[in-house]
């Protein structure tokens, strides 16, 4: 089976040759299997967002190769393999909720009927059916982020790229959104690459956590999270959950010391 994502020997240097040259990533090798939920975890400046953006063809690597579903990243982007969710919901404020969700389908030239039907289904999925006709400003931050997720999934991309999607939300909303994302992941079977700097968030959500270290960004270790599925609030109190938190923390700490 083709890997969803195969990253080999990727380096990224911003502004090479100038005085503000930054080595963001060095020697990244990573393979993600289809249907996996993988988190990129690390301190700020470890290049986790850059790595996500390289996968999504928003940034080109300086050296190395990225294959997505067996294709190059630019080709995968043209084939609409990516659904992207940023930290900011980035909704188009002049469009109602339902028309925001329809936008990717509109750009892809899908018919009106299909668009409406898909958008309704996606709003059902994120439980915002009754807010379809609202404008983004009328929604809370958590609801806006759910619209962004619905929009990213509307065209059934094979890979969902999420860049600290819950970073701007309060803790309670954040935990609810995590449960929601897991439910959606289970329902859609999409591969998810998730960037975060929260250790519990990474452990709770992922099938594997990629722990990264800073300056330059490298992979310090990969932790398999073998917690039972489906996960829920009980998972957060599971003894194994704490063991995994500790395992991840120790890798982060060992990197810090070196």
């Amino acid at each position, binding site marked *: 089976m083709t890997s969803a994502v195969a990253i080999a020997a990727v380096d990224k240097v911003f502004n090479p040759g100038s005085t503000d040259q930054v080595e963001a990533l060095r020697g990244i090798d990573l393979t993600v299997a289809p249907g996996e939920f993988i988190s990129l975890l690390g301190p700020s400046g470890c290049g986790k967002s850059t790595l996500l953006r390289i996968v999504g063809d928003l940034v080109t690597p300086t050296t190395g190769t990225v294959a997505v579903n067996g294709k190059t990243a630019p080709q995968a982007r043209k084939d609409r393999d990516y659904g992207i969710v940023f930290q900011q919901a980035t909704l188009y404020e*002049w469009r109602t909720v339902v028309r925001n969700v329809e936008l990717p389908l509109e*750009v*892809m030239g899908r018919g009106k009927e299909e668009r409406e039907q898909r958008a309704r289904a996606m709003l059902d999925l994120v439980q915002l059916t009754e807010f379809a006709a609202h404008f983004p400003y009328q929604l809370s931050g958590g609801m806006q982020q759910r619209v962004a997720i619905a929009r990213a999934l509307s065209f059934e991309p094979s890979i969902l790229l999420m860049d600290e999607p819950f970073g701007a939300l309060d803790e309670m909303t954040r935990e609810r959104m995590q449960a929601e994302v897991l439910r959606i992941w289970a329902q859609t079977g999409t591969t998810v690459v998730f960037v975060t700097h929260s250790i519990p968030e990474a452990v709770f959500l992922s099938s594997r956590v990629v722990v990264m270290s800073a300056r330059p960004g490298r992979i310090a270790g990969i932790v398999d999270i073998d917690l039972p599925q489906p996960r829920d609030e009980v998972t957060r109190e599971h003894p194994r959950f704490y063991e995994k938190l500790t395992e991840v923390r120790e890798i982060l700490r060992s990197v810090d010391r070196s």
Partner: protein
Amino acid sequence: MTGAVTTRRMPSVGTAVRHYLPAGLIFIGGIALWETVVVVFDIERFLLPQPSRIARVFVDEFGVVVSAGWLTMRKAMFGFAIGAIAGISMALLTSRWPLIRDGMMPFAVAVNSTPIIALAPIMNNWFPITSIWPGAMVVALVVFFPVMINAVRGLSEVPAGSLELMDSYGAAPRDVLFKVRIPHSLPYVFSAFKVGTTLSIIAAVVSEYFGGSRENLGVYISQQAALFHFAEAWAAILVASFSGIVFYLAVVMVERAVMPWHASMRNVAGT
């Protein structure tokens, strides 16, 4: 805080009255003060006529000042339309060819801060002085620059994330323009339009001070003032300010219809 608890509720007649009462009182008080000062200090009528006298002249001269006002208003609206269309077209061209933007913006910003109204006498030479054109061209120029500058900003200052998302959908440049850049520019453009309404009335009236057909508001004001008919001049000024307000409100109504989603409309759109 104790005592009165303020809650949100539907606007009632009572709250509407309370909302507009201060402005109403100031208006009435101001007129009364003006009237009193003129009478008490026995100010010469050609220096400052009483409001009651202006009102009487306004009624007597109603036909003349309103038809003059309408001519000037038409000139302002026509010039506004030319300036707005030209400004938006130029902005769209710059979004297609950024080189035009980089080449033009410094000049546009420079020209925008010069008194374009000073061109009025020149326009009077370029176009038939009694036609609508010289005034309309001054108005068009006055409106063109703010509209173009704001439209360029609105089209280009789109948040990076919005564009990256469109990229990830594999959107064509045309889709990015119509579905993101143009809607994003609307608030910028409308704020230029609102400034433009006021500027266009000013430009139309002032350009008429330099001559034109007798039926215009500017010509009427300058001639009546020259004849020491100050009440007539004031009555015409009243028409000019009323035209400006009407024009402004008309644009605001269009704005509300076009962008009910915008922050400035939130109290109107409701939740």
